[in-house]
């Protein structure tokens, strides 16, 4: 019995349409360009940096010139090279800690939301505990107690960041639990665990990715902040935050703090733009709405 001819969905034009949609959002394009730009800088740092970032061979505190586009710092190091190499610290570390926080938070949130019982209150009270403290303060406490270095800073930020994911994912899982396709799955014999893996988790990807992208910006900032306070990257690492920190002590040599600061600013802005546009793309479009909802 074959009565209804299927309307052929437009497969190829969809790709073109998606590209056009992306280009219609200039902020997203700018964000993407900057993010990709920094990514390339991080990858090709040795080729791009004119000098060794740790070499203290140059005249001290020179203003920007043709040999040193960003000037030199108080120890005679080329600021441009340090900023370039700084991307190798800030970006991969921020990415790492967001991945860790997302994984940990999402997993705990999903388990809490799906299995409820005693796991749920346990996870939720823990997140409450973490939320009770301002992020930077908590991160400071953790790093200070574990010992101030970049590895502990990453750990501290993961501890501070995972609860947000747990909360969001738990909420999503709770609402999905009532979703009809989940119920249908259970009726077909799917176990709770299988339903969690196949039905619930894939539908979490969208909102979580948006959250993670925006969080990348926070991570960069937080990492820079900790380093600024001396609790993260230690000298002589060319981390942007610590460079800004030193820069504040040498205010008259404005180039020492300004360029690393601009680097932080541009990276944070880029990920914010990207995250925002991702969120806009995912929300109103609504994954489960058909392309042609009745207009009339």
């Amino acid at each position, binding site marked *: 019995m074959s*009565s*209804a*001819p299927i*309307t052929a969905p437009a497969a190829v034009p969809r790709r073109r*349409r998606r590209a*056009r*949609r992306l280009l*219609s959002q200039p902020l997203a394009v700018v964000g993407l360009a900057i993010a990709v730009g920094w990514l390339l800088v991080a990858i090709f740092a040795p080729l791009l940096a004119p000098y060794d970032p740790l070499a203290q061979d140059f005249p001290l505190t020179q203003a920007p010139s043709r040999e040193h586009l960003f000037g030199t710092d108080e120890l005679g190091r080329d600021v441009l090279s340090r900023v370039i190499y700084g991307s190798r610290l800030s970006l991969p570390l921020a990415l790492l800690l967001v991945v860790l926080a997302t994984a940990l938070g999402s997993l705990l949130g999903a388990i809490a939301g799906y299995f409820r019982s005693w796991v749920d209150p346990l996870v939720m009270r823990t997140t409450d505990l973490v939320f009770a403290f301002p992020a930077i303060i908590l991160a400071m406490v953790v790093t200070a107690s574990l010992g101030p270095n970049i590895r502990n800073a990453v750990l501290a930020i993961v501890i501070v960041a995972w609860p947000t994911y747990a909360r969001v994912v738990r909420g999503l899982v709770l609402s999905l639990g009532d979703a009809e396709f989940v119920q249908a799955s259970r009726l077909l014999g799917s176990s709770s665990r299988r339903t969690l893996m196949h039905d619930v988790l894939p539908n979490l990807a969208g909102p979580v990715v948006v959250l993670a992208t925006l969080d990348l910006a926070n991570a960069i900032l937080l990492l820079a902040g900790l380093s600024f306070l001396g609790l993260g990257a230690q000298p002589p690492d060319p981390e942007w935050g610590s460079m800004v920190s030193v820069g504040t002590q040498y205010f008259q040599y404005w180039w020492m703090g300004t360029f690393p600061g601009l680097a932080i600013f541009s990276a944070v802005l880029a990920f914010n733009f990207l995250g925002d546009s991702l969120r806009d793309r995912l929300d109103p479009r609504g994954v489960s709405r058909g392309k*042609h*909802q*009745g*207009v*009339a």
Partner: protein
Amino acid sequence: MTLLAVDELRVRVATDDEPLQIVDGVSYEVGEGRIFGIAGESGSGKTVSVLALMGLLPRGASVTGAARFEGDDLVSMTPARLRQVCGREIGLVFQDPLTSFHPMLSVGRQLTEHLRHHYGATRADARGRALALLDEVRIPDPATAFERYPHEFSGGMRQRIAIAGALMCEPRLLIADEPTTALDVTVQAGILRLIDRLRRDRALSVILITHDLGVMSALADDLAIFYGGRIVEDGPADELLAQPRHPYTRALLDALPHPESARGEPLRGIPGPPAQPGSLPSGCVFHPRCAYAVESCRTEVPELRRLGDRGLACPVDPFAP
């Protein structure tokens, strides 16, 4: 006497992709004290065509044509004047009685707000009018209802209140968009009777938009069938429903379960989904689903021909009497 004359109305909406022609040359007349039915499925343009008259379309929409209401053209009016005309002369009732209301304001406040704003009526006068209307729409104990909140009422009651609200400014035209679709059948019957009574008592003109031809049969005096943004058939409702001439109208009626038809007989669906703006077929928009289509239906857009008091956009005319 014609209250509203719509002439070649076209609505085009800009989207991320190509612009969509949602309404493509629609013309009709609403007589004084008559109920004009606009019937169609989703995607037919029925709601958008009416929203266009009221200036309620989103920013990317462009409206051409004319809609002469009491001498003035609604389409070419300034937004400010349009708001004034609509606020005073046209009442609107929507499908969903829940979202038509502000959940945090009392019923009385929402009913009287409009009158006080548009006409500068005093609180006492507005309240008096509201209570009278609540009574007219058969809300029990209007004084108490006045103080209550929308969520305290059932769907049917809310729809009655919505109708009362639409009548506060004593409009000459009431537009009801799927007013009973979200209601149970016994509640729907009550609302249909109410609209019928209001029309008679107040000589009110009504534009009734619905996909439900049974509702049309109960209420409509004149009827236009929308499909793919165009009118495919129109005429007096009784005649049209008893003797439909356009293949789409006939197919639509055939798809409905008939109380008299034999049980077990399969329902006759129309193959394929209804035409949607953006992917309209060439020529006659209905031709891919039409059992009577000929070669020319694919290439030529049929004109709405006048045949006495009926209009028909089908050159084939397979059901001609």
